[in-house]
């Protein structure tokens, strides 16, 4: 079917798109006189497309309820899967008994971690089991999966599964997790990723400062809460190929992970990326795809698995909580001479996208400011909590809260206007990032000036 877009562009709407200043109510005279620097060129000076209203080609299926998300799909003879999750945040699995569950009418198959050919995955380190086999490391760890004729039967079967655990000591605080004597979650250290940036001579510069400010800032764990929970259907084609329909956002990476865990070549796996009902980074890696594939192979039937909202919160990845220690040396006039930052990212039970998050967080942790002497140390740490992974910004929102709060504290201590201290330190065209990248199209100061103008900052503070 062809999607009709002919009436999407309506002349009466096109004329209403306004320059941001006009939209914000800045009088035309003020705009012409350039009281606020115009950093946004007029739309039609860029390309004919900018500023034009277009209708999305997928709009009609979406707003008529015809878009097929995974849970809207169904196949003949399809089974439904549910996962029994851990009862402990940290425990050794002594024994699993699925016999009672398997006897239930309507239950077709079960699956445990030991049945998975290569039971580990992860984008940086393959430290995460698809289903926990030897140890559970947080409450969201899946232990047994059940495929049954209905979702309710699969759910009921979970209560009949017996898992014997040997509880292990927990570590929930990332700072405690860094101690030598902390319970270890994987291997012999809970610190599994580090990043360091050094520039100039930070100690000497701090010694020359008129003021050295210190501050600790922390952020909380955040769940993506996509409106559509994670959902997957797996089935085997007659030619022995595996077909997976998934809400996964990164299907090629996902296919590599599925190939690895199932120990089969990628060219025998097809992953169909469907319309995703919200991702935000939370659907960037596999969750139950290998489990569904193996249950589909065991039963010879398509198997669907949809996360409950609870699965979504306890089991899918989240945004890393950061603990950020800042130490900054400044001159009396507000000019920053040196900055030291220590970031401890609470990674939860598995690495996931922590490396990426930590790297980006470290680079951005200094802020958009010209500082010649820097030291940044960043650590990702395991705890017995929900795994942290990709989420929009990859560490940027956390450090932004840290460095901007710190800037406000410094401004207050020196009695300098918070806008002014930022203007005195902000990047210029050609400034270098903490890792030496020369920056172009730098508009920090213009952006600050524009915002200050629009909110009437100087009028209010003078």
């Amino acid at each position, binding site marked *: 079917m062809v999607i009709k877009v002919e009436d999407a562009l309506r002349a009466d709407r096109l004329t209403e798109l306004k320059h941001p200043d006009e939209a914000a109510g800045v009088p035309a005279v003020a705009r012409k006189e350039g009281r606020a620097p115009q950093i946004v060129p007029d739309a039609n000076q860029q390309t004919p497309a900018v500023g034009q209203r277009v209708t999305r080609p997928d709009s009609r299926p979406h707003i*008529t*309820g015809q878009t097929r*998300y995974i849970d809207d799909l169904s196949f003949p003879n399809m089974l439904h899967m549910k996962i029994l999750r851990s009862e402990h945040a940290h425990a050794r699995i002594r024994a699993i008994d699925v016999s009672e569950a398997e006897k239930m009418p309507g239950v077709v198959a079960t699956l445990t971690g030991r049945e998975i050919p290569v039971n580990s995955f992860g984008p940086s380190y393959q430290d995460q089991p698809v289903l926990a086999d030897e140890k559970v490391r947080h409450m969201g760890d899946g232990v047994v999966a059940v495929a049954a004729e209905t979702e309710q039967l699969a759910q009921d079967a979970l209560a009949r599964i017996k898992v014997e655990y040997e509880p292990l000591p927990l570590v929930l605080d990332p700072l405690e997790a860094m101690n030598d004597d902390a319970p270890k979650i994987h291997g012999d250290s809970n610190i599994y990723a580090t990043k360091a940036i050094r520039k100039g001579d930070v100690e000497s510069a701090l010694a020359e400062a008129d003021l050295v400010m210190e501050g600790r800032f922390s952020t909380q764990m955040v769940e993506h809460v996509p*409106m559509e929970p994670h959902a997957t259907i797996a089935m085997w084609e007659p030619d022995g190929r595996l077909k997976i329909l998934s809400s996964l956002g990164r299907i090629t990476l996902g296919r590599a992970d599925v190939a690895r865990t199932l120990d089969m070549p990628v060219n025998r796996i097809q992953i169909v990326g469907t319309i995703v009902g*919200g991702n935000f980074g939370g659907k960037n890696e596999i969750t139950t795809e290998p489990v569904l594939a193996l249950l589909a192979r065991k039963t010879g039937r398509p198997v669907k698995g949809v996360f409950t909202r609870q699965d979504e919160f306890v089991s899918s990845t989240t945004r890393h909580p950061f603990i950020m220690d800042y130490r900054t040396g400044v001159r009396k006039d507000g000019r920053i001479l040196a900055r030291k930052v220590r970031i401890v990212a609470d990674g939860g039970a598995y690495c996931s996208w922590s490396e990426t998050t930590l790297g980006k967080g470290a680079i951005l942790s200094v802020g958009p400011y010209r500082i010649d002497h820097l030291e940044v140390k960043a650590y990702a740490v395991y705890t017995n909590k929900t795994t942290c992974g990709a989420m929009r910004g990859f560490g940027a929102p956390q450090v932004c809260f840290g460095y901007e709060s710190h800037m406000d504290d410094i401004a207050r201590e020196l009695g300098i206007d918070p806008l002014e201290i930022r203007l005195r330190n902000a990047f210029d065209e050609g400034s270098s990032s903490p890792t030496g990248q020369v920056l172009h199209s730098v508009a920090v100061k213009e952006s600050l000036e524009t915002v200050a103008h629009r909110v009437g900052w100087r009028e209010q503070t003078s």
Partner: protein
Amino acid sequence: MEITIRVNGQERTASVPPETTLLTMLRANLGLTGAKLGCDVGDCGACSVLVDGEPVNACLMLAAQAAGRDVLTIEGLGDFQELSPLQEMFELFSSFQCGFCAPGMIISAKALLDKTPNPTAAEVREALSGNLCRCTGYTKIIDAVMEMASRGAAESERA
């Protein structure tokens, strides 16, 4: 049990166990998958449908409770070839990103405009407060409903 509901103007009957929710009957038995399962506890509004003209969370109503009543789902509004006027506004303003909340959002907006054809922005926000969207920030959704209301008002002035 045998349940008959008037869905989008047609008598529809299904044989379902008593614990079946209206949402499950619509999606699994009647093939109407426009209403979505988002949270399953009545918080997100993705499953919104109209029952006798009033929006409800179909995940929190038993199919049996809807027996003999009038249910309107997103499939009962405009279709692919011809959108309803409200859907046209959602298309014009691109009032959705992933689209998962859109059916419920449109159903709630329709319920509001049926009762209050010329709402204030505050009334629109209140009427849509039971429909969560994680992508858009709501602005374009509210704009679409307000535009619909002002066009409706202009039309009734002309009439």
